[in-house]
C-alpha cells in the first residue's frame, strides 16, 4: 500500500478512540502519545465506527415489544471504552494489553469510573465465563484469535482492528440487559490485576465441559420434537451466516478491484501532467485533467479504505455472532435432549419413578425457561442486527454517494479550466517553436 493511504488509515485509528473517549470520559487521553489533532477528512472513515460503538446502542429489555425507536427506550447507565494498546515484553512472552475504561451510574459499582488493562486472553476468559453462567443467552462474539490476513500479532493495523472489535464486544455487553449485570463482567471491568488473576483461577470450568459433551451428543442424536420455532431459527442462522460470508467475499473482491483501479488512476494522472509540459495553449486543459483524475483517485481511495473498515468488520462480527448463536442453539438442544432422554429413562425404569419425576420436572422447567430466554434474546438480537445492518448498508450507500459527488465536483471544476483560453498563452506566437 502506498504511503498516502497508510497515513490516512493510521490517522483515522487514532481519531477513533480519541473521539469516543472524549464523548465518554472527561479525562485526557493519558499516555496516548500518538494522539493527533482531528482532521476533518478522517471523519468519514471513523463515523461508521463511532456510530457502531459510541452512540447508545439499544439497551433492550427482554420483553420489549416494539422495535425501531428502541434506542430511546432505555437510558444507558454503563459505558465502556477499549483503547490504547500497549506492548509488554517479559522474559517468557510478549503480549498486548488494552486499556478498558468504564463509567457507570449503577449502584452496585463501588465507584463511577474504572480503568484497567486487559489482554486478549482475559477477554476470552470473560466470554467463557459468561457462556457458562448464561448458557442460553447470546453472548456477543470476540474477534478471531488469528489475523485473517498476513499480519503478525504485533502489526499495528492488526492490533487496532482487534482493539476496535474488542471495543464493540464490550459495548454490546454493556448494553445487554442481562449480561451487563453479570458478576464476572463487573470483575473484568473493576478488578485490580492481582484480584483479577485470582478470579480467573477460581473458575470451575464445569459447565463448559458439560456443554461440550452436550454438543457432541446433540450432534449425534436427532431431536425428537424440537420446537418448530427453533428449527426455523437454526435454518435461518445457517442461511444468514452463509449470506454474510458471501457478502464478505464480494466486498473483498470489490475492494481489490477498486485498489487495482486506484493504482491505474494513480499512473494515469501524471501522464497528463507530463504531457502538459510539452504544450503551450493546451497546458491548462491537461493540468485540469490531471487534477480531476487525482481528485477522483483520492475520493475512491477514501471509499475503498472506508469499506475495508466499516463494511468488512461488521460483516465479520456478525458472522462470528451467527456462530455464537449456533452454539447457543446447540446448547438449547442439549438441554432439551437431556430432558427427553430422561423422559425415556422414566418410561424404562418405573421403579425409580419418584426420583426421576422430580428430575423431569426440573428439567422441563429448565428447558422451558431456556427456550424463553433464548427466544427473547434472539428477538433482541434480531432487532439489533436489523438496526446495525440498516446503518452499515446506509453508510455504504452514503460513502458511494459521497465518492460520486466528489468526482462530480472534480469534473465540473475541470471543464471551465479545460475550456479556458488563457490570455498569457495567446501572446506566444505558437506553442511549438518557442
Amino acid at each position, binding site marked *: 500500500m502506498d504511503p498516502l493511504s497508510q497515513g490516512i488509515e493510521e490517522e483515522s485509528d487514532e481519531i477513533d478512540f480519541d473521539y469516543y473517549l472524549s464523548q465518554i470520559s472527561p479525562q485526557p487521553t493519558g499516555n496516548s502519545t500518538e494522539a493527533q489533532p482531528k482532521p476533518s477528512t478522517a471523519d468519514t472513515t471513523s463515523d461508521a465506527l463511532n456510530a457502531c460503538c459510541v452512540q447508545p446502542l439499544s439497551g433492550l429489555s427482554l420483553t420489549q415489544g416494539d422495535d425501531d425507536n428502541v434506542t430511546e427506550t432505555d437510558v444507558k447507565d454503563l459505558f465502556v471504552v477499549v483503547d490504547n494498546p500497549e506492548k509488554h515484553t517479559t522474559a517468557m512472552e510478549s503480549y498486548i494489553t488494552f486499556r478498558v475504561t468504564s463509567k457507570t451510574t449503577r449502584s452496585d459499582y463501588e465507584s463511577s469510573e474504572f480503568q484497567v488493562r486487559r489482554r486478549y486472553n482475559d477477554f476470552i476468559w470473560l466470554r467463557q465465563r459468561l457462556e457458562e453462567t448464561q448458557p442460553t443467552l447470546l453472548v456477543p462474539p470476540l474477534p478471531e484469535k488469528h489475523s485473517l490476513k498476513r499480519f503478525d500479532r504485533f502489526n499495528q493495523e492488526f492490533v487496532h482492528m482487534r482493539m476496535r472489535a474488542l471495543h464493540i464486544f464490550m459495548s454490546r455487553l454493556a448494553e445487554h440487559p442481562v449480561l451487563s449485570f453479570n458478576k464476572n463482567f463487573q470483575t473484568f471491568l473493576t478488578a485490580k490485576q492481582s484480584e483479577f488473576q485470582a478470579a480467573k483461577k477460581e473458575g470451575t470450568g464445569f459447565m463448559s465441559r458439560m456443554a461440550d459433551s452436550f454438543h457432541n451428543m446433540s450432534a449425534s442424536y436427532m431431536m425428537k420434537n424440537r420446537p418448530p420455532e427453533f428449527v426455523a431459527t437454526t435454518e435461518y442462522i445457517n*442461511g444468514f451466516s452463509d449470506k454474510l460470508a458471501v457478502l464478505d467475499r464480494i466486498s473483498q473482491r470489490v475492494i481489490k478491484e477498486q485498489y487495482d483501479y486506484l493504482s491505474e488512476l494513480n499512473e494515469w494522472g501524471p501522464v497528463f501532467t507530463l504531457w502538459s509540459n510539452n504544450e503551450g495553449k493546451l497546458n491548462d486543459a491537461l493540468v485540469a485533467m490531471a487534477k480531476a483524475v487525482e481528485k477522483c483517485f483520492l475520493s475512491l481511495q477514501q471509499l475503498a479504505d472506508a469499506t475495508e473498515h466499516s463494511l468488512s468488520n461488521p460483516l465479520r462480527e456478525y458472522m462470528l455472532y451467527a456462530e455464537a448463536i449456533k452454539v447457543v442453539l446447540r446448547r438449547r438442544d442439549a438441554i432439551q435432549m437431556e430432558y427427553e432422554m430422561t423422559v425415556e429413562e422414566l418410561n424404562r425404569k418405573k421403579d425409580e419413578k419418584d426420583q426421576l419425576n422430580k428430575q423431569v420436572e426440573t428439567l422441563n422447567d429448565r428447558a422451558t425457561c431456556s427456550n424463553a430466554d433464548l427466544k427473547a434474546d434472539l428477538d433482541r438480537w434480531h432487532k439489533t442486527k436489523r438496526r446495525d445492518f440498516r446503518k452499515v448498508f446506509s453508510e455504504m450507500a452514503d460513502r458511494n454517494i459521497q465518492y460520486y459527488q466528489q468526482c462530480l465536483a472534480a469534473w465540473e471544476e475541470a471543464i471551465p479550466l479545460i475550456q479556458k483560453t488563457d490570455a498569457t498563452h495567446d501572446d506566444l506566437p505558437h506553442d511549438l517553436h518557442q
Partner: protein
Amino acid sequence: MEISVSEPERRSGGSSVKMQDTYTVYLVETKITDPEMPGHGEPPSSLWRRYSEFELLRCYLEVTYPHIVIPPLPEKRVSHAWQKLPTDRFDPDFIERRRGGLENFLLRVASQSVLSRDKMLHGFLKDEDGWKDSVYATDFQSKADSKLRALSAQYRLKNTDRRFDELKNYSSEVQTYINTILKIRARLADRLYGVHKLHQNYGRVFSEWSALEKDMADGLQSAGHYMDVYAASVDVLLEDEEQFADQLKEYYCFCDSLRTLCRKQELIQLDLEKAEDSLAYKTTQREQLVDGKSSAFSFSGMKSKLFGSDTPEQREQKIKQLDEQIEESELQVQQATEDAQHFVDLALKDVERFQRQKVKDLKDIFTNYAILQIDRCKKGINIWQNAKECFTKM
C-alpha cells in the same frame, strides 16, 4: 488566408457486406454547398467506398501534398482494447466506430483549403468506377519516397532545421503520452467493469438473503435490484467512453502525419545539400585548375609533371567547361533552395493550422470526457440514493 471554401455535407450510413471475400463498404454522400467550389450546384452524389479505397486516397494525398499534415484514417485493427470490447472486424460496434472515423477523415480533408480542391478527392466523392484508374494515372507512386531513402536522409543531413527537429521530438513525445493514456484507460475500463459487475453479486445475495428475513426482506430485495442496475450501468458508460479513446487515437495517428511531414522536409533538405555539394566540388576543381598555373607543388601540378602537362588550350577548355557546369549547379542550388524554402513556408503554415485545430479538438475531447464522467457520477449518485432509501427502510 483563405478559410475553408467548401463544407460538403456527408452522410455515410448503412453498410452492406458482400458474400465473396467479405469486406465492408460505406455509403459516401456528398453535396457541395460552397458556390466557389467546382461542382457547386450539381445534384448530391452518393456512392459506395471500402476502407482500402480510403487508404488509397490518403496515400495519394500524402505523396501529392508533402507539406500538409494529412488527417489519419481510423485504425485498421482495434488497439488498446479492454477485455469486453469486441475486436472482430465485422462487429457492428467496430464498423460503426470505423464509419465515424472515416466520416471524420473526409470532413477533415474537406476542411483543409488545399486538399479540398484536389481533383482526385472530388473524383473519390463523385466517380465510383473510374476513380481508381485516374488515381493510378497520376503516377503518384513513382514520387513516393522509399523508406531507405528517407532513412539515409536522416543520417546524411548536415544542416537540420531546428523547427522540424523540435516538431519531430514533439510528436514522438506526445505519441508516447497518448499511448500511455490509452493503455491505462483500457486497464481502467477493465477495473471499472469489474467493480460494477461485482455489485451484481451483491444484488444476488441481497435477494437470497431477503428470503430468510421477515422485517428486512423488502428493503433487501429492492436494494438488490439497485445493485443490479448499478452493475448494468457500466455497459453504456464504457461504450460511450470508447469515443474518447477513438478521438485520442486520431491524435495519436496525427503525430505520425507530423513525422511524415518532417521526413519530407529532410528529403528536400537532402536534395538541396546534394546540389550544394556538387557546386562546391566543381568550384574547387576549377580553382585547382586555375591555381595549377602558378603553383608547381599542388597535386595537379605533380600530375601534370608526371603525365605531361595540359596544353594551355586544353586547360582553358576545361575551365570553360567547368564554368558552364558551375553555372548549371548554381541554378540547381538556387532551385533547390527555393523549393526548400517554399516547402518550409507551406509546411509551417499548415503545422500552425494543425496546432490550432489540435488545441480546440483536445479541449473538446477532454471536456466531453469530463461531461461523461459527470454523467457517470450523477448516475452513481442516483442509484446509490435509491439503494440508500431501501436500506434505511429496512
